[in-house]
């Protein structure tokens, strides 16, 4: 039996399918919903944060604008821009200081304010000016150039830059609020530059709202690069290419989700990034648990199906074994019923069946025997043997009266022959009886012949009590007399030998009759070997083939008849049967 056909395998697959498929579907849905949920939450959260931060940024920008307005609308400022007189400059400088002292209060944390007039005058608040830094140098600054050339109406916020114009702390990087400004009469212009420190922006953008996400943060970029670089090693190229909600990879292979919002006041993009593993962590945890549960379930299925299939298949296998034995003819086998389930019922049914079968076989056997006996009885009733014996005795009496001894002898022989052929119901008789039968037969035949023949018997006394199938010698002897000796019309001779050879009893019937030609002999031998059964049954051949069939069906094919003959020399037939001891039980059983 193939493993794939076994009960164990079928059960295992069924259990596995029934447990794993629903579990898989539920798991997958849960995982999907949960992760979507988490993602949406994150998105909302990111949105909120970004809005907050942009509001904060707008506040700064608005404050800057207010400061700008405060400065540009003052009379001093207009005078400063239009002033060409160096002496006047100092007086204005002091006046501007007064003005700015109050304006600076709007944003006390700013790094400093610088006003540059078109006439080349500088005003600095919050820091002292580097005297080496001239108007020409100022004009060469990239962000000044940008504003100069493009004439922006809106204020520009620069990227982080160093402050070459400051007398100290030149290396401190700051953002600058830059605006091209005009006097009241719009006759001359200048630049207003409010520097503010990176920290001030950072402070705003810091996630101080107690975010639960690790490894998250904010950065700002515009079209050309980072305005405020992220703390993690995220490459600008990737950021620039990706849109809000997508995943990017850091240089170290970590994955981040980023959400971006455009900040129109400055043309910045504000982005919030989250490390994926940090917020997917719980989901991965769930996935891990789900996998573990699946494996454990599969194991349980395996064990359960092993157990159940063992419980189911062991009795079935036992039943199968018993059935095989019964098939081979051991009807004494019984199936041990241990359980009360269907298999137990099956076993009980099987046992009942065997018992019935046994009864049936016995009944058939008994019936056959009865039938045979009935046949013989019917035969005996047709010609009541006692009537025949009495009639024979009457003839015998007449012969006695007339002193006809030969007739009397023949009648006696005939009576004996008749008696032995109908007296026994048994299939097997002692060899002694078989020999007596052929002696009677030969004596009668002798009287019938024109030229009486001679016969000799040499039977080993040892074999006389062994059993033989009934009437196996007479047909052969009859053949020897009728087909062998009768045609030669001279004194025939028949020799009958009974002897043992190992565990076999051999009878040899030898005549000096006409013999059989070799072609016919070959044919007889072939038929004896292959078709004696059919010949005996359908062609009513009661001689050789009948004897052969009866011997071989009672014993086996290693026993039977062999024949040897030579034309005009005679024929020798040898019969072999096993040594079968007389069994008293067989005789008495009815």
């Amino acid at each position, binding site marked *: 039996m193939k493993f794939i056909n076994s009960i164990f395998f079928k059960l295992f697959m069924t259990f596995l399918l029934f447990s794993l498929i629903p579990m898989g579907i539920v798991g997958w849905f849960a995982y999907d919903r949960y992760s979507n949920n988490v993602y949406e939450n994150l998105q909302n959260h990111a949105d909120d944060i970004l809005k907050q931060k942009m509001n904060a940024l707008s506040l700064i920008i608005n404050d800057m604008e207010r400061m700008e307005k405060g400065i540009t609308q003052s009379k001093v400022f207009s005078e400063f821009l239009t002033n060409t007189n160096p002496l006047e400059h100092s007086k204005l400088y002091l006046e501007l200081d007064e003005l700015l002292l109050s304006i600076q209060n709007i944003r006390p944390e700013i790094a400093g304010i610088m006003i540059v007039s078109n006439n080349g005058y500088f005003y600095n608040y919050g820091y002292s000016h580097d005297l080496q830094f001239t108007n020409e140098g100022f004009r060469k600054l990239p962000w000044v150039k940008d504003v100069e050339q493009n004439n922006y109406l809106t204020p520009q916020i620069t990227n982080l830059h160093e402050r070459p114009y400051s007398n100290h702390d030149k290396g401190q990087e700051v953002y600058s609020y830059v605006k091209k400004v005009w006097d009241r009469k719009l006759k001359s212009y200048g630049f207003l530059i409010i520097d503010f420190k990176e920290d001030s922006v950072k402070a705003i953008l810091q996630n101080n709202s107690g975010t639960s996400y690790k490894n998250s943060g904010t950065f700002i970029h515009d079209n050309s690069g980072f305005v405020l670089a992220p703390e993690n090693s995220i490459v600008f190229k990737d950021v620039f290419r990706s849109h809000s909600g997508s995943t990017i990879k850091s240089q170290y292979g970590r994955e981040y989700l980023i959400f971006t919002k455009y900040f129109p006041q400055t043309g910045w993009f504000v982005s919030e990034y989250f490390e994926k593993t940090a917020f997917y962590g719980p989901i991965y945890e769930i996935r891990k648990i789900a996998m573990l549960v699946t494996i454990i379930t599969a194991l349980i299925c395996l064990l359960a199906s092993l157990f159940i299939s063992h419980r189911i298949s062991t009795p079935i296998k036992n039943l199968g074994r018993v059935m095989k034995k019964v098939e081979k003819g051991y009807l004494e086998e019984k199936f041990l019923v241990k359980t009360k389930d269907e298999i137990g019922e099956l076993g009980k049914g099987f046992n009942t069946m065997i018992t019935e079968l046994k009864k049936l076989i016995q009944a058939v056997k008994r019936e056959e025997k009865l039938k045979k006996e009935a046949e013989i009885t019917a035969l005996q009733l047709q010609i009541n043997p006692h009537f025949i*014996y*009495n009639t024979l*005795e009457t*003839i015998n*009496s*007449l012969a*006695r009266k007339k002193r006809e*001894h030969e007739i009397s002898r023949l009648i006696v022989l005939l*009576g004996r022959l008749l*008696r032995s052929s109908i007296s026994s119901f048994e299939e097997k008789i002692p060899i002694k009886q078989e020999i007596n039968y052929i002696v009677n037969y030969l004596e009668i035949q002798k009287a019938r012949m024109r030229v009486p023949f001679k016969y000799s018997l040499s039977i080993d006394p040892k074999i006389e009590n062994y059993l033989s199938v009934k009437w196996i010698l007479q047909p052969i002897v009859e053949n020897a007399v009728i087909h062998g000796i009768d045609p030669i019309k001279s004194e025939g001779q028949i020799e009958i030998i009974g002897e043992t050879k190992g565990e076999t009893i051999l009878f040899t019937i030898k005549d000096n009759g006409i013999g059989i030609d070799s072609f016919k002999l070959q044919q007889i031998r072939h038929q004896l070997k292959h078709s004696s059964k059919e010949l005996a049954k359908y062609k009513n051949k009661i001689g050789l083939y009948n004897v052969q069939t009866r011997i071989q069906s009672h014993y086996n094919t290693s026993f039977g008849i062999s024949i040897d003959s030579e034309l005009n020399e005679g024929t020798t037939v040898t019969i072999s049967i096993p040594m079968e001891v007389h069994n008293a039980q067989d005789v008495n059983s009815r």
Partner: protein
Amino acid sequence: MLKMLIVDDDWLISDSLKSLDEWHERNIDVVGTAENGKEAIFWMEQENLDIILTDIRMPEMNGIELTKHIYERNSNIQVIIMSGYEEFSYAQKAMKYNAKGYVLKPIDTDELMETIDRIQKDINPMKNESSHPENEPTTYHDRLVLSAQSYILANLMKSLTLKEIANRLHLTDHYFGQVFKSVTGETFLNYLTRVRMEKASELTKNPNLKIYEIGSLVGYKDPKSFTKTFQKVFNMTPNEFRKQYFVNEKQ
């Protein structure tokens, strides 16, 4: 000289066996033949028999019963059974009642003689010890009359004639009548009537039998003729005879 009786209901068989030459060779005298066991017992009472050769299946009393009777009488008579039956139960019973041989029909003379020879060997020493001279020797004529009487006793219900019995004995009826009268002192007819009436008087003692049944059992087909003959012999009718018998019984 051993005396032998052959018992078989088939007369041809017993007669042919009786005529065998082998008996003379063996110095055996076949005193007669009987048709059933009862007849055989009659012969046993008349003659000092040594051997009985008997069939089994016979009317009135079969061979086994006869053998049993002999065995119970503790008689010295040797029994040989001859039968067409080979059944084990018969042979077993025969052995139980001490039968000396069992010969199957059709009878092989040689086999029979072998049995006889065996028995002769057994008997001869006994015989020599007590050779019995009483009521011996019966003459040829005595034998003939015994045979006739045996036959008559066995066949009382038949209408027997002198001629019929003479034929059985291979004699002319005239000669047989003379022999019978000289041996018994009464005529055959007298004897026959006497035996019949004796039997009838016996039978009247059985109250279950009607008078006409008794008549037919002793060979009278006509009840009137039976009553007439009975009255002549006993001076009363069978019914009166019966009444008288039962009155005597009571007293």
